[in-house]
C-alpha cells in the first residue's frame, strides 16, 4: 500500500490556559490532498487547534509538524499554511485584485507574474473581470471565493478554513459546499476544515475528526462516523439519532439484545459489550419504517404524534407504549399514505441497522 505523505501532523498536542485545558493530548494525521474536517460543538477547541496549526497560538505541549517539519516557534507569516477566517478578513480598503495579490506582493513576486496568477485564480473561482471591484460591492458568496483565492494563490501546503460558511444563507451554503469540494479537487491542496455543522462535514470531507471538550472522540470517513459511531456523543452529534436506554443481555457474537423499558430489542454489538452492561441502543430515523415489516427483528407499537412535511423527507414522531418518542425520517416517495395523527402505528427496524454503545459515565 502506498502511504500518502502527511502534510500536517499533530502529536499529543495540548493547550492549557491556566487551569483550563482547551485542547487535551490531541493527535491528528492529515494526508496530502485530503479534505479533512474537524467537527464539534462551539467551545470544543477546534478553533484553538486551527490557530495552533496556523501559528497564532503555540501549544503548551506536543508537536506540530507541517510538511514533515516541526513548526514550534515559527510565526504565522513563515508557515506554509494559509487561513481562511470565519469572517473572511478581506482587506476593506483594497479591491479584489489587491486582496488576492497581497500574498504574492509580500513575497516580492513581480507585477507581471502576479497579474498572471491573479487572473488564473479569478478564473478558478469564476470571478474574472472583478479585479477592480471593492470588497463591499461583493455578495457573500463572492467574498467567500475571493478569500479562498487569496489564500490559495500563495500555494500553501495546507489550507485552513474556519467555519467559512456560517454567515451564508441556506441555498448559498449548499452551493458553496459543492464549490469548495470542486475547488479542492481541482487544486489538490490539502484542506483542514473546522465546523459545527455536521451536514457540511459529511458532504465535503474525506475524513472527519469529531471533537468534544478538547479531545477527539472519533476519526474516520463520513460513512464511518455516521454509520459506526464509537461513542454516544458521536452518535448524537453527527446526524439525528434515536436512543433506547437499557441493559445488555444475551450477547451472541456480533449481535446482542438490549433489555429496555419498551421491551427486548436486537442490535449490533460492535463494542463487544458484556451482558449486564448499561447501554444505549441507537437507531437512525431513516432506518425506521412504518407498517408491519416482515422478518424484521424489532417491532414496536405506538401512536403517531406529529408529521412534519419537509419536502425531501417527511419527519414523524411516534410515541411508543411506554412513553419514549421515536423520530422517523421517511423518504417522500408518496408511496405510503400515512395514517392520521393520533392513530396507532407499528414501527419496525432491523437489528443490523441498530447498534449498542456503552452508556456514558459522565
Amino acid at each position, binding site marked *: 500500500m502506498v502511504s500518502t505523505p502527511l502534510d500536517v501532523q499533530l502529536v499529543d498536542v495540548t493547550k492549557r490556559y491556566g487551569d483550563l485545558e482547551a485542547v487535551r493530548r490531541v493527535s491528528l494525521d492529515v494526508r496530502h490532498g485530503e479534505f479533512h474536517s474537524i467537527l464539534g460543538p462551539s467551545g470544543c477547541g477546534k478553533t484553538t487547534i486551527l490557530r495552533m496549526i*496556523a*501559528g*497564532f497560538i503555540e501549544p503548551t505541549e506536543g508537536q506540530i509538524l507541517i510538511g514533515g517539519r516541526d513548526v514550534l516557534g515559527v*510565526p*504565522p*507569516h513563515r508557515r506554509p*499554511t*494559509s*487561513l481562511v*477566517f*470565519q*469572517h*473572511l*478578513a*478581506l*482587506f*476593506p*480598503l483594497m479591491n479584489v485584485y489587491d486582496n488576492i495579490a*497581497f*500574498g504574492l506582493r*509580500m*513575497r516580492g513576486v513581480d507585477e507581471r507574474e502576479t497579474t498572471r496568477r491573479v487572473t488564473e485564480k479569478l478564473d478558478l473561482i469564476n470571478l474574472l473581470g472583478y479585479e477592480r471591484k471593492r*470588497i*463591499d460591492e461583493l455578495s457573500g458568496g463572492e*467574498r467567500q471565493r475571493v478569500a479562498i483565492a*487569496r*489564500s490559495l494563490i*500563495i500555494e500553501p501546503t495546507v489550507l485552513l478554513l474556519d467555519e467559512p460558511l456560517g*454567515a451564508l444563507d441556506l441555498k448559498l451554503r449548499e452551493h458553496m459546499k459543492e464549490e469548495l469540494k470542486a475547488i479542492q479537487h481541482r487544486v489538490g491542496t490539502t484542506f483542514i476544515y473546522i465546523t459545527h455543522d455536521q451536514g457540511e462535514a459529511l458532504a465535503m470531507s474525506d475524513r472527519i475528526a469529531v471533537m468534544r471538550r478538547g479531545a477527539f472522540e472519533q476519526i474516520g470517513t463520513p460513512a464511518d462516523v455516521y454509520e459506526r459511531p464509537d461513542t454516544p456523543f458521536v452518535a448524537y452529534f453527527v446526524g439525528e439519532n434515536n436512543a433506547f436506554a437499557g441493559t445488555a443481555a444475551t450477547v451472541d457474537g456480533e449481535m446482542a439484545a438490549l433489555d429496555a423499558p419498551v421491551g427486548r430489542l436486537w442490535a449490533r454489538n460492535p463494542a463487544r459489550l458484556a451482558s449486564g452492561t448499561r447501554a444505549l441502543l441507537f437507531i437512525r430515523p431513516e432506518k425506521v419504517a412504518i407498517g408491519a415489516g416482515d422478518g424484521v427483528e424489532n417491532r414496536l407499537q405506538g401512536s403517531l404524534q406529529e408529521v412534519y412535511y419537509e419536502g425531501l423527507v417527511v419527519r414523524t414522531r411516534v410515541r411508543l407504549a411506554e412513553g419514549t418518542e421515536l423520530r422517523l425520517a421517511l423518504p417522500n416517495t408518496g408511496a405510503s399514505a400515512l395514517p392520521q395523527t393520533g392513530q396507532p402505528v407499528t414501527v419496525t427496524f432491523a437489528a443490523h441497522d441498530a447498534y449498542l454503545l456503552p452508556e456514558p459515565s459522565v
Partner: protein
Amino acid sequence: MASARLTRLVYVLYIGTFLSFLYLPLLVVALLAFNANPMPAFPWKGFTLGWFGEVFRDPLMMGAIGNSVLVGLGVVALSVPIGVAAAFLLVRYDFVGKGALYALVLSPLITPGVILGVSMLIFFSDLGLQTGLGTTVLGQSSFIISFVLLIVSARLQKFDPALEEAAQDLGATPLRAVWRITLPFLRPAIVAAGAVAFLLSFDNFNTTLFLIGNSATLPIQVYSAVRLGLSPKINAVSVVFILLTVSLGLLVEFLRREERRPASRPEEMLPWATAGPVPVPAPAAAAPSSPHDR
C-alpha cells in the same frame, strides 16, 4: 396638535435667543473692525479697511501669527506619533501597571492649563532650557497628545484584528501588516487628530503664557494688545483670528465626517453604514477646541 406646535415654538424662541446671545458679541467685534472710528465703538464713522492694513503691517502681529503656525506644526509633529503609539499600546496590549498608565495619559484632560504651564516652566528651568517656541511646543503637546490618543484609539478599537492576522498569514511580518493594513485604516483618524492638534495649539493660551518667554503666539499677542488699550486694530486682528480658527474648525468637522466611513468588519459594511449619522463633535474625544484655555 396645538401643544406640540407650542412646544416647538418655545424651543425655537429659546434657541434663537441662545444663538443671538452667542453671536451678538462676535458680530459687534466684526462690525467695529470696519468702523473708521478711532475707538472701537459707535457711532459709525464710515467704512474702512485701514485697521486690517495696520494689522498686516504690524511686525509683532504678523510675527505672532507666524509663531502660532510654527508652534502648531511642531505640536502636530510631536503629538501625532506619540499619540498613535499610545493608542496602540493601550488598545492592544495588557501589561503590569496599565491601569495607572491609563489614568496618567488621560490626566491632562482634567488638569488646568495653568498647572501644566507652571510645572513645565519649573522643570525646564531646572534643565536650563530657555522659554520660547520650543518649550511652548513641548508644553502644549503635553495635553494635546491625550486628545490624539482619544481620537485614534476610538478608531483603532473598531479595527478587526483578524485583518492583521490575515496579512501575517499571507506572509507579512507583524510590522508590515501594521504598516500596510492597520495604519491605512487609521489614516482618517490620524489626519483628523492632526487637524485637532493644530487647532488646539493655535488657540492655546493658559499653558503657552508660562512657556512662551519673550516670543508671542497670536493669542498672546492679542491679549497683550487688549491689556494695552482698546483699539479697532484689535477688532481687525480678532476678525482674522476668527476666520482662521473657524476655517480650521470646519476643516476638522469635515475630516471627522470622513472618518466615519469605511468600517473594517464585514458585518458593518452594509449599504446604509456609509450614509453615516449626523457628524457630532464627539465631545471629550474631539471638542474642536480644548478645555485647555485658549
